[in-house]
């Protein structure tokens, strides 16, 4: 009998061990798969941006977009990751101490996120750590996505290296701090204001959109965009099918982006053993995304179609629809998603026209799609979702619930975290003579001046380049 109990105990231990291995490998593979899916966002931005560019500047826009991706990822490794872990409680705790969950603060960040000293063991292959790499990879793609969002607004007149500097600041400092404050269980926006932004409408989209606005003010419009009387000309991109297909690829990538916003169960870093959660520890399922993301895409397309009949704005509406409900994709009901995302699609074009009327040349509607609609989404969740507990079951008792006030505070913070760094860094870059491409070069065409290749060597002629 005793032998049988011992054998059974050993068998149970073996089964438990095998289950742990399966769970660990599933979790690692789950986050790993989100990374190539998010690379599709960049494939989409590349097509989108080049398609929205006029023929004489196509490859220049491509080079700029690729470098934003490359430098942001490298910078995220060297110092961006540190911002996320170090600053959740700062500046409320000016010394940036650890929060309630004890996975934040200077000491913690210094121990895990620098690529030198003892912390280097968590910034490379590790014998016993299946999590750090895949989390870092997913966050690196979040960072690169944030930087690429701003890229499209600035096409055809921003210098390459000046833009790279702006993109690195956006993808590391601006986004890293936004995520630390509003997308971390110890973040002060979460613990003190109940800020809820599951799919990063504020801390990715609004930050990127308003960073772009700050840069646009210093950068100025493309040559020929505005007439002497202030009226605007439409500078059509050279390839609408490329742009629209790119936007659809971005939507495909969003599924990976949103997958990566979920914390899986059953691991040492999980909130629960049996339930997936948001990054705040509030329970959710992948099914919530399966319902709500396609519905949001559909609502946004339809809303924009009502207003414009234009495929560019319909696909922008698709993006806007998802962004408008991104904050609450974990808790919205499907019909609510249809209504809110349609509304986002409807207001999109008028908001973009209003911005253009102020003399801002946003080449792809980035400030409106990502910035304005991002803030719209944060506030809508405040109106519709007040009372949602701010954190999961193991949170401190004084955790603040979601409220309209908290979401508005979050919206203001995200606006400032985008706009202020965008304006300041582009002002400095401008003072260094590295921001705006001279007007005569814009007129001649950027590809002819600085790209050792032609976009369509045997195809479409570019009168400006040939001249």
């Amino acid at each position, binding site marked *: 009998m005793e032998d049988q109990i011992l054998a059974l105990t050993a068998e149970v231990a073996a089964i438990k061990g095998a289950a742990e291995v399966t769970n660990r490998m599933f979790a690692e593979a789950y986050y790993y798969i989100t990374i190539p899916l998010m690379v599709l966002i960049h494939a989409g931005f590349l097509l989108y941006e080049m398609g929205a560019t006029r023929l004489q500047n196509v490859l220049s826009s491509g080079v700029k977009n690729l470098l934003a991706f490359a430098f942001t990822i490298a910078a995220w490794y060297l110092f961006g990751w540190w911002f996320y872990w170090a600053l959740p409680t700062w500046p409320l705790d000016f010394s940036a101490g650890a929060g309630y969950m004890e996975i934040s603060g200077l000491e913690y960040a210094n121990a895990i996120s620098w690529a030198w000293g003892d912390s*280097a063991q968590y910034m*490379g292959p*590790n014998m016993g750590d299946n999590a750090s790499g895949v989390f870092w990879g997913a966050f690196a793609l979040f960072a690169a996505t944030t930087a690429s969002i701003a890229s499209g607004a600035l096409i055809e007149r921003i210098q390459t*290296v000046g833009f790279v500097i702006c993109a690195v600041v956006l993808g590391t400092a601006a986004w890293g701090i936004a995520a630390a404050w509003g997308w971390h269980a110890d973040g002060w926006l979460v613990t003190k204001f109940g800020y809820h932004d599951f799919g990063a409408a504020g801390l990715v989209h609004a930050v990127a959109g308003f960073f772009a606005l700050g840069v646009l003010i210093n950068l100025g419009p493309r040559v020929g965009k505005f007439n002497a009387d202030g009226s605007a000309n439409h500078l059509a991109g050279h390839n609408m099918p490329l742009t629209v297909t790119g936007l659809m690829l971005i939507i495909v990538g969003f599924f990976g982006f949103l997958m990566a916003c979920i914390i899986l169960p059953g691991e040492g870093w999980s909130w629960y053993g049996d339930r997936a959660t948001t990054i705040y520890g509030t329970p959710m399922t992948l099914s919530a995304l399966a319902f709500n993301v396609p519905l949001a895409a559909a609502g946004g397309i339809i809303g924009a179609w009502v207003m414009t009949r234009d495929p560019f704005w319909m696909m922008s509406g698709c993006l806007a629809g998802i962004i408008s409900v991104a904050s609450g994709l974990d808790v919205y009901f499907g019909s609510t998603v249809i209504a809110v995302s349609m509304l986002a699609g409807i207001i999109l074009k008028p908001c973009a026209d209003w911005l253009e009327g102020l003399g801002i040349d946003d080449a792809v509607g980035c400030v409106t799609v990502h910035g304005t609609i991002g803030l719209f989404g944060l506030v809508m969740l405040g109106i519709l979702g007040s009372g949602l507990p701010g954190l999961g079951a193991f949170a401190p008792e004084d955790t603040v619930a979601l409220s309209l006030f908290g979401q508005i505070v979050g919206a203001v913070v995200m606006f400032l975290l985008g706009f202020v760094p965008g304006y300041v860094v582009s002002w400095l870059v401008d003072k260094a003579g590295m921001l705006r491409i001279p007007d005569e070069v814009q007129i001649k065409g950027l590809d002819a001046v600085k790209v050792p290749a032609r976009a369509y060597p045997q195809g479409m002629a570019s009168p400006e380049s040939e001249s």
Partner: protein
Amino acid sequence: MGYFAESFTELHNADGWMDMGMYIGAGSSAAGWWTVIATVMLVGVLIKGNSDEQDHYK
């Protein structure tokens, strides 16, 4: 230079694999030096890239 362990047996015990870096240079100052080299290369590329770009605009 070179890999830090001659055998993986010493890195595996009853609790499984040890929680430690398993990259070339783990446990030494190599990671930090490679980080310095990578940073210098990235900054150097930006400086050279900007210099070339300004030449295009002259």
